[in-house]
C-alpha cells in the first residue's frame, strides 16, 4: 500500500471542504478522481502535498505518517505535485527548470559547489524529448504556451522521480492530440510510480482509467470503481448532468 488516508477533514471558514472517510492507493496504480467543481479534489491534493494542513485525520505514505510535515519534507519523501494552474519557474529556461527538479542532493552547499552529477544532462534531454520540449529547451519558461507549460510542469514532477505523482487537470488547455499524448505518458509513468489524476475531460479519463476511478462530491467519496461502472452509475450521471437525485443529498 503506497498511500492510506483515514478520516481526513478540513474546513475553510466553517465550510467543510473535505471529509474523506477512507482512501487508499496501491503502488504503481493510476487513479483518476472526478467530481464537480468544489468537490474538494484539489483540496485533497493540497493536503497530500502539505500545502494545506488538515483539521483531523491521518495520512500514511509508504508506511510513514506525513501529517505535520512541511512541503519540503513531504516532497523529499517522494510526493510530487502538478497544479491545476501550471506552476513552473517563469524566469528560468526550460532546461534550468528541469535541472532544478532532477533528483539529486538539494542542500545549499551541494547546489553552490558541486558539479552536476553525470547523466543528468542526458536524463533532461530524454525527458525533453518525451514531452516535446527539445526545441524549446533554452527558451524562458515564462514564454511557453499554456500547453507547453503543462508539459513542462509534468516533466518537472517526473524528473523529481517521486513515488507518488499528484496530477491536477493535466489535459486542460490541451488539444485532443496533446491530451492523448499526455495520457500515454501518464500510463507509462504508472508502471513505476503511483499516480493520482484529477480530470474533467471524460475522453481523457476513459483513456487513462485502467483501474479505479474515484468520484468526489461535496468533499465526500461518492463511489469508487472501474470506469465503465462509474460511467453508468446513476448518481454519477446525475452529478455530472445535473439530473435531480435525492440520493445525492443523503450523502
Amino acid at each position, binding site marked *: 500500500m503506497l498511500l492510506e488516508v483515514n478520516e481526513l477533514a478540513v474546513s475553510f471558514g466553517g465550510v467543510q471542504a473535505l471529509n474523506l472517510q477512507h482512501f487508499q492507493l496501491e503502488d504503481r496504480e493510476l487513479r483518476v478522481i472526478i467530481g464537480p467543481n468544489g468537490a474538494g479534489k484539489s483540496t485533497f491534493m493540497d493536503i497530500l*502535498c502539505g*500545502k494545506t494542513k488538515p483539521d483531523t485525520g491521518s495520512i500514511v505514505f509508504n508506511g510513514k505518517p506525513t501529517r505535520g510535515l*512541511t*512541503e*519540503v519534507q513531504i*516532497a*523529499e519523501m517522494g510526493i*510530487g*505535485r502538478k497544479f491545476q494552474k501550471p*506552476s*513552473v*519557474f*517563469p*524566469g*528560468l529556461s526550460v532546461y*534550468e527548470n528541469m*535541472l*532544478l*527538479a532532477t533528483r539529486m542532493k*538539494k*542542500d*545549499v552547499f551541494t*547546489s*553552490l*559547489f558541486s558539479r*552536476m552529477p553525470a547523466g543528468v544532462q542526458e536524463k533532461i534531454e530524454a525527458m525533453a524529448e518525451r514531452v516535446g520540449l527539445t526545441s524549446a529547451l533554452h*527558451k*524562458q519558461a*515564462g*514564454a511557453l504556451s499554456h500547453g507547453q507549460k503543462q508539459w513542462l510542469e509534468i516533466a*518537472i514532477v517526473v524528473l*523529481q522521480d517521486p513515488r507518488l505523482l499528484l496530477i491536477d487537470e493535466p489535459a486542460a488547455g490541451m488539444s485532443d492530440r496533446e491530451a492523448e499524448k499526455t495520457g500515454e505518458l501518464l500510463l507509462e509513468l504508472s508502471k513505476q510510480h503511483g499516480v493520482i489524476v484529477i480530470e474533467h475531460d471524460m475522453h481523457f479519463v476513459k483513456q487513462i482509467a485502467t483501474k479505479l476511478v474515484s468520484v468526489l462530491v461535496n468533499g465526500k467519496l461518492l463511489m469508487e470503481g472501474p470506469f465503465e461502472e462509474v460511467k453508468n452509475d446513476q448518481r454519477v450521471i446525475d452529478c455530472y448532468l445535473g439530473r435531480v437525485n435525492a440520493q445525492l443529498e443523503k450523502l
Partner: protein
Amino acid sequence: MQLKPAKLINILFILFFAVVLPVGNMLGLVSVNSISLWGRYFCFAIAALGIDLIWGYTGIMSMCQAFFFCLGGYCMGMHLLLKATALQQQLLPEFMTWNDITTLPWFWEPFHGFVPALVLSLLVPAAVAFVIGYFIFRSRIKGVYMAIITQALALSMYLLFLRNETNLGGTNGLTNFKTLLGFELHKPGTKLGLYLVTLAMLCVAYGCCYKIVHSKFGKVLQAIRDSEPRVGYTAYRVLHYKLAAFVVAAALGGLAGMLYVPQTGIITPGRMDVKASVEMLMWVALGGRGNLKGAVIGALLVNCVYSYCTSVFPQGWLFILGMLYILTVLYFDKGFLGLFEKIGSKIGIKTNSERYATGSK
C-alpha cells in the same frame, strides 16, 4: 559570439578604473580626491551586489542592508580607532574619556589585531543576518511584511547605535583614524592603494556573485523569487536558501563597510538610518535589478549624481534624485541597464539579456 560585447564592456571597465585612473593620478591629471571618491563608490557597488543578490535575484526586499554595511564599517572602525589611540599613547578612545569610561569595553578587545577585525567585519554582519533571517524566514514573513520588519529593525539598531551607552561613539561615531597596517591613511599613496584594493574586491565580489548566480544555487534563488511554493514542492528547503542568500548579502555589505571606513575616515550611525537602506535599494532599482552589472552601475551612477549635484545644485539635488527615483520606477522597470538595452536593440546591438526579451515575445 553573443557574449562578446558584454565581455568587452567588462574589460573596458576594469581597464579604465584599474589602469587609466591610477596612471592619471600618478601623472597628476586625476586628483587624489576623485580617486578616493571612486574608491568609496566601489564600496557602495559591493554592497549593491549583495542587495541585488537578495532582492534582485531572490526577491526579498531587505531594508536593513545599510545596517550590515555599518556593522562591517564599525568593526573596521574600531580597529582603526584603537590603532590611532595607541599611536597617540592614550589608553582609551577620546569619546570614552568624556563618557566617563575607564576600561575598554569587552567587545572592543578583539579589534586590537588587524586580522580579527577583518574576519569579524565579515562575520558579525553574517551572524546577525543569520539570526534575524532565521526568525523572519522561519515564520514565513515575506513581501511587504519583510520590508517593514527589516526597516523597523534598522531603525531600532540605528537608535541603539546613536546612544552613547553602547560605547560605539554615539552620534559622532568613530573617527580620527590615523593608520592602517602602519600606512598613514592621509597619504595619497595609501589612498591609491585602498582604491586599488577596493576595486580588486569589487571584481572579486562580482566574480563570486556571478558564480553564485550562475550556479544551481543561483537558479534556486531565482526560482524562489518567481514561484516560491514550487521550490518547496521540488524538495528544496526554501528557508536554507533564503537564509544563505541573506547571509551572503549581509557579508557583502560588511565587506563594503569595512573597505569604506578607512577611505572615508568616519563611520557614524547616520550611515544606517532608514534613509540609507532605501537609498541602497534605489541604487539597485535604478541600475537594473536582477542583473549584477545593473547593481554596480546603479551604485556608481547614483553616487556620482549625488556627489555632483550636491556641489552644483546645492538646493535642488533632492528634486533631481527624487525625480530619478520616480521616473525609474514608472518608466524603466529594468533600470538603466534595461534602458541601455532598449537603445542598444534599436541600433542593432544584441546583448546577453536581450535574448530573453526577444524570447518572451
